[in-house]
């Protein structure tokens, strides 16, 4: 498909900022609901740490951010040019 043809095509659903925002607010709403759901069931924690309120949300969020930043830091140590091994 040539470029002018592509310019004429309709932007996809996910390419419209309005739709992406809808998804974002949807996600925030689900997060809110999950936060409230903490108080709606009987807890049977196996470990003391699970007794921290909203433990799984906090843990999931922090773990994710940690993994991404640790990965970023790892790049300074192990990242090389794409053709690093091809040059031998």
């Amino acid at each position, binding site marked *: *498909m040539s470029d002018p043809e*592509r310019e004429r095509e309709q932007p*996809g659903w*996910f*390419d419209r900022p309005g739709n992406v925002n809808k998804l*974002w607010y949807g*996600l*925030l709403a*689900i*997060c809110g609901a*999950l936060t409230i*759901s*903490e108080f709606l*069931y*009987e*807890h*049977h924690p*196996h*470990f003391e*740490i699970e007794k921290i309120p*909203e433990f*799984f*949300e*906090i*843990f*999931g*969020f*922090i*773990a*994710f*951010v940690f*993994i*991404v930043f*640790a*990965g*970023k830091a*790892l*790049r300074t140590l*192990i*990242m*090389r*040019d*794409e*053709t*690093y*091994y*091809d040059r*031998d």
Partner: protein
Amino acid sequence: MTATELNPGLLMIVAGLIAACLPRRTRQALTLAAPAVGIAVLFSTPIGAESVVTVAGLPLTILRLDALAYPFALIFLIAAAFNAIYALHQDDRLQDASAMVYAGAAIAATLAGDLVTLFVYWELTAISSVFLILAAGTTRAYRASARYLVWQIGSGVLLLAGILVHYRATGSLAFGHMQLGSTGTWLIFIAFGIKCAFPFLHNWLQDAYPEATVTGTVVLSAFTTKLAVYTFARGFAGEPLLVPIGAAMTCFPVFFAVIENDLRRVLSFSLNNQLGFMLVGVGIGSELAINGAVSHAFAHIIYKALLFMSMGAVLYRVGTVKASELGGLYKSMPWTTVFCIVGAVSIAGFPLTSGFVTKNLTLGAAESAGYLWTWLLLIFASAGVMEHSGIKIPYFAFFSHDSGHRVEEAPTNMLVAMALCAAGCIFIGVFPQALYSIMPYPVAKDPYTVESVITKTQLLVFSVLAFGVLVRTGLYPKEIPSTNLNTDWFLRKPGAALLKGVVMLAAKLNDAVAGFGTTTARATSDLMQAMNDPNTQFGKPWPTGRMAFWTTVMLGAYLFLSYVV
């Protein structure tokens, strides 16, 4: 030979060898028919069946179907069938044949009741699978396949040495539970560990799998490593050492997966991480934990195949799976996108998917056994899975920024294979009892308690929230075309330099010695004489144990050399 004694593994191997000689249509019919017949044979074989043949005076249990082997044999056959459908668009005799022989070898190894039979098929999985990498036809694939083979054969050599030492010590060749401690059991343990991609022995996986063909990577992802999980469950269930090893395996690959640009390599890191979950289950060793490991292996083969299939489809259509060159493909490949997302939510372990109902058993086992740190690492790794397989794979391939690629949707056969895998993921998630009923032990646990559904969803959705925050604030790292170093660097760079130095030194010495040609010849002849004289150190008959040891050393040296040249 009656139907009950038929070995579905051997059946696949023979069918694969026949397939190598057939024209396209008949061959493809055979690639579909053989696993179907294999499944029928498996269903008709009663649990507890054994088949013993005597080879050179050695009784070999070539078939032992029990409650542990059954789910592995079944999922290997199912995977072979799905893979065959996925490969229908191509006319490739070599790949079709090697995929079947490879699957057959893995099944036959699973059904092996003794260590010698296990060893034979263990080696066959290595040799038959290497063609799936070689067939990619690139220099990178050629070199990766050499390194792959070195590790795989290395594992086989260690296994053989371990079996010999173990046999001398115990007089038994039966493949059953072993106690880690003796030299023999340690050698066997490490041989299994190589194929299971233990930390520091893992890199052959991320090195070779992403270099294989579109269909080859899908095939590779199913068998070798899960065969290793099976052998651990058979030989070392309840071995406490497997718990920290497995926990380490769940965690370290996630950091590499974040920054890896090749999406099939991301999935290979993810595969490594999943094996960790299974090994933790095997290491805990309770009935619940073993069920967790086995059911996870079963579910994992399907969703991992699905993810590799979707990335294979992208590679097939676009010509690359580099995240930095992809994006926006949901418009061109909507079905592939949907199937990939099903695989992604399954591996992440959302409720109503196979990942949820299987990973929950292992987590439950860690909870019941009071393994706090292991449990924390496992849920940390679950957030990691969400990152690299749950989000990164579908996001960078199909969404993110529009890369401008306008391609056709994947071929119909690929879509059918993906649809079947996706259906499998959902089916197991919705009807977990179907899978639980074929586990080695009865499953009493109900995965769908309110608490478990809410807490796991909280963990995963807040990981997604973190992703959203990082992307919207521009903090999420960009995909960069790059090579990320791993343990193979030590052999490929300093190892190669060292070898070069040794070779040059040897050449110089050779030049220096050339002047003393006559002396050298005389010395050589003296040495030869000494080696044949039973009164000298060299000429003495060697005990087999030492023989096995030196063979291992020689092959180890070969391993090292082939790595660096």
